[in-house]
């Protein structure tokens, strides 16, 4: 899929996000070689904290792939430098303690957290978890360098499917939502 995409687009960064086990099962060395050759730019692996850097983070950096780390509301100032140490590409701030798709409780707290992280790193900070609408993207986009949207996009695509297969509405559903979210981020910059 990444190879196909790369044939048409050589500039948009591609980041793979997921859990470690499918990569571990595939084989770390083989995975990194295939990912690099296909044009992948970075990885976000949610269940690999810095304590497990030897597993994939260090080999990925050596292979020339970015390893984008999650920081969370529970990552305090004492721990933050260790979390940022082997992070590259950008920092992904998780807006809440919870799971993807839940709602952000305090936007002011998110802004404060982004400022705090920026005090420790020059990397761009993107915020994810709980961003559902153009309005959310606009508000969060004022403090963050980027926003990460997953659950509502999956929902929008999911609602367009028939019997689990894409329909002529699917691409439009994704495009409409992404356009609105992008508009929100641009409004934050204006």
């Amino acid at each position, binding site marked *: 899929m990444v190879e196909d995409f790369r044939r048409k687009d050589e500039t948009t960064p591609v980041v793979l996000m997921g*859990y*470690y*086990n*499918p*990569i*571990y*099962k*595939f084989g770390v060395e083989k995975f990194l070689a295939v990912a690099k050759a296909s044009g992948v730019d970075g990885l976000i692996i*949610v*269940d*690999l*904290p810095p*304590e*497990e850097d030897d597993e994939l983070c260090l080999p990925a950096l050596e292979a020339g792939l970015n390893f984008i*780390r*999650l*920081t*969370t*509301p*529970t*990552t*305090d100032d004492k*721990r933050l430098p260790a*979390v940022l140490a082997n992070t590259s590409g950008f920092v992904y701030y*998780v807006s809440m*303690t*919870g*799971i993807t798709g*839940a709602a952000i409780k305090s936007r002011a707290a998110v802004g404060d957290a982004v400022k705090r992280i920026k005090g420790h790193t020059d990397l761009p900070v993107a915020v994810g978890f709980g961003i559902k609408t153009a309005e959310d993207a606009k508000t969060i986009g004022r403090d963050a360098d980027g926003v990460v949207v997953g659950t509502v996009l999956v929902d929008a695509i999911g609602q367009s499917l028939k019997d689990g297969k894409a329909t002529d509405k699917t691409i439009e559903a994704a495009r409409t939502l992404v356009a609105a979210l992008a508009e929100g981020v641009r409004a934050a910059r204006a």
Partner: protein
Amino acid sequence: MATNGINSLRNGPDEHGRFGIFGGRFVAETLMPLILELEAAYRAARLDPAYEAQLQDLSVHYAGRPSPLYFAERLTAELGGAKIWFKREELNHTGSHKINNCLGQILLAKRMGKTRVIAETGAGQHGVATATVCAKFDLPCTIFMGATDVERQWPNVLRMKMLGAEVRAVSAGAGTLKDAMNEALRDWVTNVDTTYYLIGTAAGPHPYPEMVRDFQAVIGQEIKSQFAEAEGGLPDALVACVGGGSNAIGTFHAFLDDPTVAIYGAEAGGHGIEVDNGHAASMTGGSPGVLHGNRTYLLQDKDGQILEGHSISAGLDYPGVGPEHSYLHDTKRVTYVPITDDEAIEAFQLCTKLEGIIPALESAHGLAQVIKLAPAMAKNQSIVLCLSGRGDKDVESVGKYLGMSM
């Protein structure tokens, strides 16, 4: 535990929570500070004589320890080989070994100032033990249990509710222990400030496998001294059932450095190890992977997607196993064998009829392995089985399986 010597099998885990390549801390960043805090609190507690004294007092006067080591005379005669002994963990308060770990962890939760407890449960034994200690220590608790398990273990669901716990039925996946653990982890990641996650098995991220093992190791320590007193020396074989493996690691740990003691773990063979998705034997039928915070043997497909295990026993159909068992499997110190549903049911009936003890279906898996081993051993040899739980909760599903009517 440097006193064990450098070649001891009892030195694990290392400072990264590893037993060989297994174990570790494969968790989201949100949880990482919590498990580091938990580890520090656990180390501090174990050095505090007041903590140890309270745990010891509760073990004796609340849980009823030590549990007896019982000579199963009729079963021994029936099988015609080695002497068979039961370590009667089913006589503990709440009816299984699970209380050993719950007492240790609830005292820890209190010390850490946590105000809410969550737990996952399969057969409901751990859920009942957690609900029990939460009632005693006045902490609200929420138990996550797969919807399928709620149905097949409803007597335990009623017990948990009567003890004041909220039982949340999890309908995701096959509605079993894996799904309950996923949901408990989701709750924990959402309520990190207030909530203590009381894991019931010797799995999950470090320090849980070590901590749960330490609280269950009393089983093997007692067997050692009780057997020496009753028979002299060491038993020739130990057997325990393995789901996540808490009663098994508790039984085995004290004997790992005693090479004359053969050790067997009975995994859930379900419909048979050769049947796709028909068993929950992670070690004899799986491969290493990463799930629920640790690297261990898992039931998974070639893409690393986790498979649904099957077992007649709700306590054993977990697609993983504690990391220390994976290590003991690879080092071949412990022999893990699959036991089918049918073999477990047969052992359940035999024990009930010959000894007047209704074992939990989980423990019946261990018993089925004893039935295989005993006839081939000499009459002056001994096997100790950890009878980890009582089977009251299972009489309805066994009755159904056997087509018994009212």
